[in-house]
C-alpha cells in the first residue's frame, strides 16, 4: 500500500501552536480564509488584545452586534455554569487578571476574588446584541478554543478529500480517518497515561501544568473563589464536536463535570493531583496501569 504523506501546516495563533494536517494540500485561498477566520475570532474574544471586542466591553463599551459565536458559546456556558454550581463562569477574566494572568502577562498575584455569580443577568446576548450591565472582562477559555477548532474544520472540510486533523494544541478534531492520540502525563510530558483513537470526533485536553506561574497559580480558577483548582491535574474529553469536548474538559475540574458529560454523551478521562485516574462509564480510551 502506497503511503502518501499528508500535508502539514503549522502556525502560531491565539497564544498557542496549531497544526492542520490534510490528505491533500490546502489551496492558498483556503489557508488565507482560515487565517482570517482565526484572526476575526481573536479580535472578538481575546482578552489579551487591546483592540478586541471583549476588551472594549470590559472598558464600559456600549452594546455591540453579537459576534457569530456568541449564542453557541454563551448558551453552552449557561449549562456549564449551572452544572458546576458557578465554578465555570465567562466573566472570570478579571479574576484571572488579578491572579496575574493579565493582558500584559504581568504574573503578579493580587489575590483571589469571586467572579460575578449573576453573570447571566449581567450579560445580555439576546436579540443579536451583546451587552453588559456592569463592565467585566469576558473570558471564553472554558470552550472558546474548541469552538474555533470546529469553525476551522468546517472551513477546510469542503476542500479536502480524505483525512483532516485540526490540532490547536490540546484541542483537536479529526475527520475521515482514525488518529491515535497519546494522553500526556501532566507531570511528565515524556510519558502518556493512555492512548485514545479518535475517528470523526474531537478530543480536547486541559491540564494545569503549562499555563502556570507564581506560587501554585495556573489558569483553571474556580470562579466562585478565584482560587486555582487543586484536586484535578488533567482532563480529556471526547465528543462529536470540539466545543462540547472543550467545555466538558473544563467542567471535569469541578464537581458536576461527570454529570454534564453524561448529559451530553461525552466520554472522558481525568487525573487527580495524587495520581489517580478516573474515567467515564462508556470510555473507549486505552489506559496504562
Amino acid at each position: 500500500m502506497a503511503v502518501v504523506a499528508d500535508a502539514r501546516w503549522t502556525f502560531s495563533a491565539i497564544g498557542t501552536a496549531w497544526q492542520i494536517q490534510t490528505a491533500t494540500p490546502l489551496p492558498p485561498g483556503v489557508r488565507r480564509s482560515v487565517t482570517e477566520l482565526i484572526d476575526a475570532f481573536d479580535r472578538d474574544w481575546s482578552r489579551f488584545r487591546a483592540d478586541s471586542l471583549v476588551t472594549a466591553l470590559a472598558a464600559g463599551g456600549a452594546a455591540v452586534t453579537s459576534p457569530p459565536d456568541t449564542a453557541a458559546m454563551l448558551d453552552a456556558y449557561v449549562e456549564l455554569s449551572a452544572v458546576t454550581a458557578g465554578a465555570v463562569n465567562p466573566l472570570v477574566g478579571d479574576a484571572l487578571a488579578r491572579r496575574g494572568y493579565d493582558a500584559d502577562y504581568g504574573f503578579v498575584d493580587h489575590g483571589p476574588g469571586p467572579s460575578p455569580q449573576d453573570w447571566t443577568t449581567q450579560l445580555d446576548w439576546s436579540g443579536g446584541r451583546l451587552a453588559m450591565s456592569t463592565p467585566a472582562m469576558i473570558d471564553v477559555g472554558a470552550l472558546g478554543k474548541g469552538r474555533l477548532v470546529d469553525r476551522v474544520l468546517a472551513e477546510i472540510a469542503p476542500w479536502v478529500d480524505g483525512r483532516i486533523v485540526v490540532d490547536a494544541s490540546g484541542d483537536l478534531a479529526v475527520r475521515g480517518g482514525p488518529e491515535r492520540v497519546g494522553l500526556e502525563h501532566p507531570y511528565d510530558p515524556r510519558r502518556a497515561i493512555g492512548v485514545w483513537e479518535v475517528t470523526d470526533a474531537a478530543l480536547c485536553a486541559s491540564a494545569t501544568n503549562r499555563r502556570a506561574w507564581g506560587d501554585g497559580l495556573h489558569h483553571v480558577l474556580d470562579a466562585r473563589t478565584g482560587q486555582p483548582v487543586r484536586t484535578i491535574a488533567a482532563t480529556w474529553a471526547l465528543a462529536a464536536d470540539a466545543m462540547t469536548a472543550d467545555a466538558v474538559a473544563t467542567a471535569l475540574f469541578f464537581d458536576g463535570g461527570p454529570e454534564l458529560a453524561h448529559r451530553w454523551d461525552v466520554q472522558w478521562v481525568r487525573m487527580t493531583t495524587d495520581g489517580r485516574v478516573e474515567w467515564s462509564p462508556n470510555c473507549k480510551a486505552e489506559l496504562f496501569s
Partner: protein
Amino acid sequence: MIRTTAVPRQLRVGAAAASVLGIAVLAGCAGTTTSTDDAGSGTSSTDQAVDTTDTGSSSGSATYTDGTYSADGSYATPESVETISVTVTLADDIITAVEVTGNPTKSESEQYQSQFIGGIQDAVVGQDIDEISVSRVAGSSLTSGGFNEAIDAIKAEAAA
C-alpha cells in the same frame, strides 16, 4: 442533601445557644467533609443571623423574641463552596428545635460515582511516549509568544 434535626432539649438561650449553633455547624461540616481528604484545608465562615450574645444567667422574663431564626454559612473547599443553613426555634428563651440543612456537593459526587464515573485506578505512571505508537499527544496547550517571553523574563530576573 442532608437534613439533621437535633433533638429538642431544654436549653437556656445565650452561651448555650451559641454552643448549640457551634455544634450544629460542625455537624454540617462533618456531614459534608467525610468523603474528602483535603476539605479540612478549606476556609470557613459563618454569618450568624441569630444573636448569640451571652446574657448571663437570666431566669426571669424572656430576653429574645419567640420565633424561628435562620442563618446561612458557607465554607470553601478547593473545588467547591459548601453551604449549610441552620434554623433555630426559640420559645421563652429556650431552643425547642435546631435544624441543619446542608448542600454537600462532595457527598453528592460520591453518590454520582456509580452513575457517572466508570472506574478509578490508583497511581497511574504511564508509558514512555516514544514506546507507544501515537501520531500526536493531547495535554495542556503549548504556550507561545507573550506568555513564554514573560515567564522567561521572570525566571531571568529571579536568577540575576
